């Protein structure tokens, strides 16, 4: 897959993350997962998912030209 396509896919993943941040479906869910309330456990998972997408972003869609042009 070419870099511009990879970049676009990862930018799209960021938009999806932004939408997923609004977890209306867990608004009144008081169940506990691993000791954490559902609404909090979801957002801890959200942080981990964000870490994964951002890692892919810096590995596969990094603006290399910035370092090349400014050694």
């Amino acid at each position: 897959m070419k870099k511009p396509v990879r970049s676009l896919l990862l930018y799209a993943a960021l938009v999806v993350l932004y939408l997923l941040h609004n977890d209306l479906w867990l608004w009144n869910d008081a169940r506990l997962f691993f000791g954490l309330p559902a609404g909090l456990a979801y957002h801890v998972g959200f942080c981990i998912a964000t870490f994964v997408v951002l890692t892919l972003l810096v590995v596969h869609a990094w603006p290399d030209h910035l370092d090349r042009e400014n050694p």
Partner: protein
Amino acid sequence: MTLTIIVVYLAIVLVIGLFSHRFFRGTSEDFFVAARTLGPFILLVSLFGANMTAFAVLGSAGESYMEGIGVFALMASSSGLVIPVVFYFIGTRVWALGKRRGYLTPVQYFRERWDSNGLGLLLFIVQVGLLIPYLLIGVMGGGSTLTQVTDGQVPDWVGGLVICAVVLAYVTYGGMRGTIWVNVFQTMVLLALGFITFWVIIDKLGGLTNAMSLLAEKNPDMLVRGEHVKPLKLLTYTCIPLSVGMFPHMFIHWLTAKSASSFKPTIAFYPVCIAIVWVPSVLLGVLAHLDFDGLSAGAANSVLVKMIDLHAPGVLAGLLAAGVFAAIMNSFDSQVHSVGTMFTQDIVRHYGFHDRMSESQQILVGRLFMVAILVATYLLSRVTDRSIFKLGVWCFTGFAALFPVVVAAVFWKRSTKWGAFASTISVVVLWIYFITLGWKSADYTIADSGVMPVAVILIVSTLAMIVGSLLTQPPKAETLEKFFP
């Protein structure tokens, strides 16, 4: 014991800050942006530390006590997504421009980008004006924390004075390098102490699952967002972290990177760091209902201190106080340094010396301004009403609403100085309008709908930038050539 630990901690901070001076190269670039030499790890820790205020430690626990676990989604996980994305798209580009053109402040960049002294001056006034309440909050927060953890043994004015004195020593002597060395140490302290505090208290409560089950029986509404947070507030609160794009101290921190690649770990690990600091604070805030029910909003701000006093007094209380000081000084020193840098570069050097100042003159003036800012902040903190704490979220609102200015500067060739003027003035006018409507309430939303004022101001400032630019003459070709070669 508590006081001894705090004194030892502050002495360590001072030694680290002063020791950093051994590596000082004697240039203004070194004093103001650490000679643009920061590698990946140091950049991650110092940027994260500079953006963590005392609010992340004390305020988040108090807010969670009042509003429940929804505070994490509202203020933490949204920042974990938005802030690194701003670093990726804006921070790296600003670093490249700063390195290529030798910038030391945001105003230098905006002034040249749109070829306008007037715009530079307006942005200087707005950025410094919005930062002043933050400086005051840092000093006043330090004073009240020291009073609380020492059970009133140390008066309020001493804590603020101690913070100012320690920061003055290492910021003026060590410059940006001293600030960064101390930031790295303090951020590590903050992360470690947060974890230890959480571990000890949860253990005393019989483990996380047990404590949460008890809370589910006693205060089930703390485990859900329910009526505490409106869905529109969750959506529009995501605009607030955009403020990092226009915070002068974050902007200047970006310029300290050795290369664009140095940003990679910062961008990837930022959400993990956010979770490490915020999850314990939010959990301890809601679990405090097991021991202290019915606290007022004011008393809730010190709920973490109350939990420690109850479950782990003595050494841990001292360590927690050190952690709070770490959080306060981490952002406070960067802010003092950035305001001193801006006064030196954007006012004295630009207007007084027409950009002709020797290296040593710049460093001397920078130091004098940093001393003056600290003295003025301390004196102001003694006469300012404590209601200034309510200004915190409004400062974020102002900086976030200015975000279209930096986006247009970096990405939009057709943007003009008149667009930037229109955008900035629209922010000032609407900020004043909304603050007069709702400044007495930190929870103010438009017509109580959940919509944060920042969302409306951001839309208007974006439109003002677009319309103002399209209705005026395009920028000169030679100006564009400098920024879009």
